[in-house]
């Protein structure tokens, strides 16, 4: 390289005359600056290994630090999963974390105040601690009907999927010890249905595979997913697959950037995927194109269901329905002569203990013996039940319901069948387009059924790739900050029937499989929480855990807030005033709080609604009349702390700290630890029994630095666990129920094996195979593709060489292959358990689904899914289309909320149906991130998509006089918003139920704050939930769309009221 530093005798003119560059266009014209140019990436003092804070792909990032400042953030090319690439958001990480939009000081709003005030951090922390102590006592519930509750219902928390695992762990630990049960985060509103759907079908509720495995697929079906926009860097694996000859199919209501590269785009009516998938299931069943050997060996197809079971039939109602309660008793769905619990979902909220005690089943653990018909002929075998159930889901019906023409549908079916079997595999990729429905869990179940029928589970290029949304939302589900589970998906105990540990374990632990060892996991968790205090004598402090009495999900809490029952609320990096359904209700709820603590980067809508929210604008609320005290505490960025994120492929990656946060910015670890410390100081010496859990809690983490930052490392070590000798545990099989082991999250056990932080491993991609097993650490036990035992036939030989993944090595006497086997390493394929074997020993050598009570993939779910053992098509809560498949229009078990501002729309055959005739769906853009807190304030992102818009077809635009680049007002019974109009061919009307149905699409990122501003789409959505996951329905609703901007002020509320009058909406509308 001819880079010379110019000397006095080297003037450009001289260089021009003396050198080769006579015209001074190159070498002679190079300035001193150009000659001395260095790249910041080369001159940095150090490179810090980190992980992108945005989505759940978890791209590895390198942070370059010079003179104590971050000078560059870019991708880490060593990473097997991201290969050094970053999407626009990841690329904007430096601006996000170092830009001017971040708040640096604590802000405080006094009750009735009109402005923010300054408050020093120490004082703020003290005030918050005081309020927790005071209001916890005020809202205490000791017992109900003789059952001990031991809980506080007056304080709640929301967030955070953007937080580290260590932070979520401390939040759950602290709040649980305080008796607080209303703990939720983004996982609830995002992929909770996935946890139910995958968990009940296969045994674990997380993605069964990794995006990198998609390169092995022969067919990739992206449905309920906008992968290229929501997960661009993971999409590289789809591109890779395509380069190798795979076919890509995208099924979606709108043509997105994901569709642009698909071989087949299938436009579909939003909310009808179960009809679509059910149609494919019907096709496979009636043409017998299933992978028969796989189905017989690895699924419950041959299992016989009990006599009491009744098909859903034309009515669409399974046996066991209680019309009054709008819920099912799943007892009649159980197997004939046996009782099996689910590995996930609704495992026990109402007392399996009663059922077991009343039944007389005998067998292992009192759970009876499963009966099977391997010929698949028995009337009540799962196979025949499924055939009957899906018989009505014909191609003609799919056309009528979904708007998918029969020839297009036939092509999709053909592709599925041709790309499954021994030699070929198909993968599903899904996102919240599937989960966010009142029947969301069933969507996932439907895909799971198909993948089991076609033999795609546990095989390379197969599986169900659940694409989650936030940097550590998998973690905040695993650890979790959720109301209904404890770390590792142990259910939160219920007030009824869970009096002691014995009851709890016998109710929820199945006799067979690894969940049978639940006692080991629970006791180890209790030891982590209460250390020395937890002994066999006091049931390991099991009584310290607060009890549930039903659903306490985020929307239940919203209603409790609206009713004035909640005094204090914590928001950890979550923005419900934009991101949750029915934002008006969210703000209404917050206005009834006594105090609110918001931790975030910038002043998000959930922090400022009292000052400038829509209700202030309309005059419905006056700032001076709102008594909610608001504390805004600026949060540290991921660059300013260390800890782990768990990404969508269950991989925990440690991110190192690059710089210190400034001024009042602190990590959530710091906040939670010190809040806990201050609360314990205030309660020290208390004689009140209620304070024992918080005072006996192990809460002595080491701290360092001038801010006394707790060591995240110490928290991760606790999560991993240790034995009585203080040695780190290496696997969850080492956990014991005798109090000798401690483990904060059993599925994460092994992440600190041998005292080495496995999550910080960074073996480059070039030095390992595609599964990337030596980069970081994945749960469980660093297995990358779950259920991979199923990639081999019952004898242990791969179904085909082309699709070999793990197989039995007779010589070595163990399972070997490209991935860590998801099976006991030395269990022979021909192993048959003794009749009364329990636990893992009861799983046969050819049962790959080791978490399931029967070791099988569940085509039929006898337990765990609240609205039926088989997915059934119902219309969304608000739909302009009649359900042509079943008489029941909507999910009979869905959860609804009665409130003036949560009204639903009339049904398609009722008066007023024509008022909201247009189907609306929502989605993401690649330039923004979820509720906008991390993108609308970031200039490089805000400028790419500055305003809220609605996408409409040219046909609808013509009909309604909508002008491209003009404005439209979109109205529902909940609210009215305005958006810029994008007239595009990418939205298409569909021929449904004999008529034309229009659809519009809205990205949901906007709110009135930040640099990119607009109305929030969630002003329109209602709270109507899936009964198993409690997730809201925002992917399919009905609206009206008119040209022009919306009214301002009180006129806006009046517009909505007028629509409601026209539609005849009352409290009784569609709540049955």
């Amino acid at each position, binding site marked *: *390289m*001819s880079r010379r530093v110019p000397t006095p005798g080297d003037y450009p003119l001289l260089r021009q005359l003396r*050198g*080769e*560059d*006579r*015209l*001074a*266009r*190159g*070498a*002679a*014209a*190079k*300035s001193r*600056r150009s000659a001395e140019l260095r*790249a910041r*990436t*080369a001159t940095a003092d150090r490179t810090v290994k980190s992980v992108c804070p945005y989505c759940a792909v978890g791209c590895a990032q390198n942070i370059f630090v010079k003179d104590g400042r971050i000078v*560059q953030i*870019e*991708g880490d090319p060593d990473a097997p999963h991201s290969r*050094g*690439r*970053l*999407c*626009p*958001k*990841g*690329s904007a990480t430096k*601006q996000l974390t170092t830009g001017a939009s971040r708040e640096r000081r604590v802000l405080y709003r006094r009750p009735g105040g009109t402005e923010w005030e300054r408050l020093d951090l120490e004082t703020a922390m003290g005030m918050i601690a005081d309020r927790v102590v005071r209001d916890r006592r005020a809202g205490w519930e000791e017992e109900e009907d003789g059952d001990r509750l031991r809980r506080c219902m007056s304080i709640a928390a929301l967030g955070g999927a953007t937080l580290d695992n260590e932070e979520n762990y401390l939040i759950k630990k602290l709040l649980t010890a305080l008796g607080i049960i209303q703990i939720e985060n983004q996982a609830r509103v995002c992929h909770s249905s996935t946890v139910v759907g995958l968990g009940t079908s296969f045994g674990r509720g997380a993605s069964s595979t990794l995006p990198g495995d998609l390169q092995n697929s022969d067919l990739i079906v992206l449905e309920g997913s906008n992968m290229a*926009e929501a997960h*661009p860097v993971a*999409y590289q694996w789809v*591109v890779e697959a395509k380069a190798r000859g795979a076919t890509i199919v995208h099924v979606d209501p709108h043509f997105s*950037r*994901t*569709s*642009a590269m*698909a071989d087949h*785009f299938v*436009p579909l009516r939003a909310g009808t995927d179960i009809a679509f998938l059910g149609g494919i299931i019907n096709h496979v069943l009636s043409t017998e194109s299933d992978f028969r050997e796989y189905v017989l060996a690895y699924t419950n197809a041959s299992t016989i269901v009990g006599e009491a079971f009744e098909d859903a039939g034309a009515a669409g109602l399974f046996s066991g329905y209680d019309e009054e309660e709008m819920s099912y008793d799943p007892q009649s769905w159980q197997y004939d002569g046996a009782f099996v619990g689910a590995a996930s979902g609704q495992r026990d909220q109402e007392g399996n203990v009663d059922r077991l005690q009343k039944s007389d089943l005998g067998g292992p653990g009192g759970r009876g013996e499963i009966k099977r018909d391997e010929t698949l002929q028995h009337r009540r075998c799962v196979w025949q039940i499924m055939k009957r159930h899906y018989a009505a889901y014909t191609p003609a019906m799919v056309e009528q319901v979904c708007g998918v*023409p029969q020839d297009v549908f036939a092509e999709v079916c053909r592709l599925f069948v041709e790309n499954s079997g021994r030699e070929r595999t198909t993968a599903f990729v899904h996102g919240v387009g599937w989960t966010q429905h009142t029947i969301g869990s069933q969507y996932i179940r439907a895909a799971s059924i198909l993948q089991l029928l076609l033999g795609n589970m546990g095989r390379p290029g197969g599986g169900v790739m659940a694409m989650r949304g936030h940097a550590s939302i998998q973690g905040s589900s695993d650890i979790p900050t959720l109301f209904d589970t404890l770390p590792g998906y142990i259910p939160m105990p219920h007030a009824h029937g869970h009096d002691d540990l014995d009851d709890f374990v016998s109710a929820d632990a199945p006799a067979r499989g690894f969940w049978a060892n639940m006692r080991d996991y629970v006791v180890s968790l209790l030891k982590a929480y209460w250390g020395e205090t937890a002994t066999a004598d006091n049931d390991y402090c099991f009584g310290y855990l607060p009890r549930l009495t039903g659903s306490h999900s985020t929307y239940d809490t919203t209603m409790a807030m609206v009713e004035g029952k909640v005094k204090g609320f914590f928001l950890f990096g979550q923005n419900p005033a934009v991101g949750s359904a029915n934002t008006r209700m969210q703000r209404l709820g917050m206005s009834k709080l006594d105090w609110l603590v918001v931790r975030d980067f910038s002043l998000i809508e959930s922090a400022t609604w009292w000052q400038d929210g829509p209700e202030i604008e309309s005059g419905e609320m006056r700032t001076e009349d709102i008594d909610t005290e608001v504390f805004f505490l600026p949060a540290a960025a991921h660059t300013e702390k260390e800890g782990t994120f768990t990404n969508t492929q269950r991989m925990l990656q440690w991110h190192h700290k690059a710089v210190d946060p400034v001024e009042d910015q602190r990590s959530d670890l710091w906040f939670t630890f010190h809040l806990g410390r201050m609360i314990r100081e205030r309660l020290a010496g208390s004689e009140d029994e209620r304070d024992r859990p918080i005072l006996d809690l192990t809460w002595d983490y080491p701290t360092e630095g001038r801010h006394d930052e707790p060591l995240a490392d110490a928290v991760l070590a606790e999560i991993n666990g240790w034995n009585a000798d203080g040695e780190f545990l290496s696997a969850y099989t080492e956990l014991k129920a005798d109090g000798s082991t401690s483990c904060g999250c059993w599925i994460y056990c092994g992440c600190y094996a041998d005292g080495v932080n496995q999550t910080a491993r960074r073996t480059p991609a070039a030095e390992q195979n595609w599964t990337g097993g030596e980069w970081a650490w994945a749960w469980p036990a660093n297995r990358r593709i779950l259920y991979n035992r199923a990639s081999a036939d019952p004898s242990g030989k791969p179904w085909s060489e082309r699709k070999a993944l793990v197989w039995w090595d007779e010589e070595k006497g163990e399972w070997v292959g490209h991935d860590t086997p998801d099976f006991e390493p030395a269990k022979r394929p021909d192993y048959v358990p003794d009749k009364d074997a329990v636990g893992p020993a009861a799983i046969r050598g050819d049962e790959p689904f080791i978490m399931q009570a029967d070791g099988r993939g569940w085509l039929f779910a006898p337990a765990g899914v609240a609205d039926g053992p088989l997915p059934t098509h119902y219309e969304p809560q608000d739909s302009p289309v009649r359900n042509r498949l079943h008489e029941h229009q909507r999910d009979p078990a869905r959860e609804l909320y009665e409130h003036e501002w949560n009204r639903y729309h009339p049904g398609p055959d009722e008066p007023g149906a024509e008022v909201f005739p247009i189907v609306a769906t929502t989605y993401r*853009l*690649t330039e923004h991130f979820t509720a906008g807190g991390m993108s609308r304030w970031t*200039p490089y*992102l*805000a400028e*790419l*998509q*500055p*305003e809220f818009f609605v996408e409409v077809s040219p046909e609808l635009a013509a009909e309604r006089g909508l002008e*491209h*680049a003009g404005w439209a007002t979109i109205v529902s019974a909940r609210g009215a918003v305005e958006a*810029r109009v994008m007239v*595009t061919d990418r939205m*298409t009307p*569909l*021929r449904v139920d004999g008529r034309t149905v229009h659809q519009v699409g809205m990205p949901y990122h906007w709110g009135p704050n930040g*640099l990119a501003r607009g109305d929030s789409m969630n002003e329109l959505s209602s709270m109507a939930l899936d009964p198993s996951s409690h997730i809201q329905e925002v992917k399919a609703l009905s609206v009206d769309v008119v040209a022009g901007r919306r009214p301002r002020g009180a006129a806006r509320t009046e517009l909505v009221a007028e629509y409601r009058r026209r539609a005849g909406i009352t409290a009784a509308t569609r709540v049955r």
Partner: protein
Amino acid sequence: MADPASALTRGDDAATASGYEEHPPRMGFFTDTSVCIGCKACEVACKEWNEVPDDLVGWAGSSHDNSEGLGANRWRHVAFVEQRAPLGTQQANFQRDGGDFRWLMESDVCKHCTEAACLDACPTGAIFRTEFGTVVVQPDICNGCGYCVPACPYGVLDKREEDGRIFKCTLCYDRLGEGQEPACAKACPTDSIMFGPLEELRERAGDRVQELHERGMGEARLYGEDPGDGVGGAGAFFLLLDEPEVYGLPPDPVVTTRDLPETWKAVGIAAGALLAGAAACFAGARR
């Protein structure tokens, strides 16, 4: 002294022509739009690395493009084109008008021409050819005269109003000096933006076009790859799936200074003739 005309037209080895005795192979971009997902990581990565100011223009509604194209504050620009036409064997399955639809996406950038008119027009020596064969505006030399702006046949160069100087893509000159790839190429999730020695890229591009033709995408073609084109071939060339005009690119760009030698020759002849004529007049007048 080298003949100015031949210096301008000297083919591939732009760096040698620019006086570098030893230099690395010519480096460039091959942007394969057939795998572009329109994510704009390239735009953001470029801005972050090069500290380019943000420029919120507002909602343009030009498909998903809310900027105005390449400019002083946008050195990578993604274009979106929605068309009622099939893309190879893809099935969009819309129920209207034949049902075909395709969405073309392309990340545009400075072409780093072999024959660079901006380089020709720059009077201060701010714009120069680097040892990598790339064309770079040196911000410490640029006086903002703006001669380069109308010179570029692609309209790439632009003045940063608040600053006064001209800015454009440098092909991350500073990163190249450390053996690192440009920020946009590094970030691109699908490897639509490929960076490397121009020779290798041209070969790879040829293979890719052939592969696409075999897969039924007959409209795939290269743009800017040919050293015989009007700018002597571009250091940053593209694989497009339709005519260049569809993407907002000039179909047949020519280095705007191409005719300068002819023009000066003509000026010389005209001046000579004028002088001769004037001399003749005065000579005659004396008699």
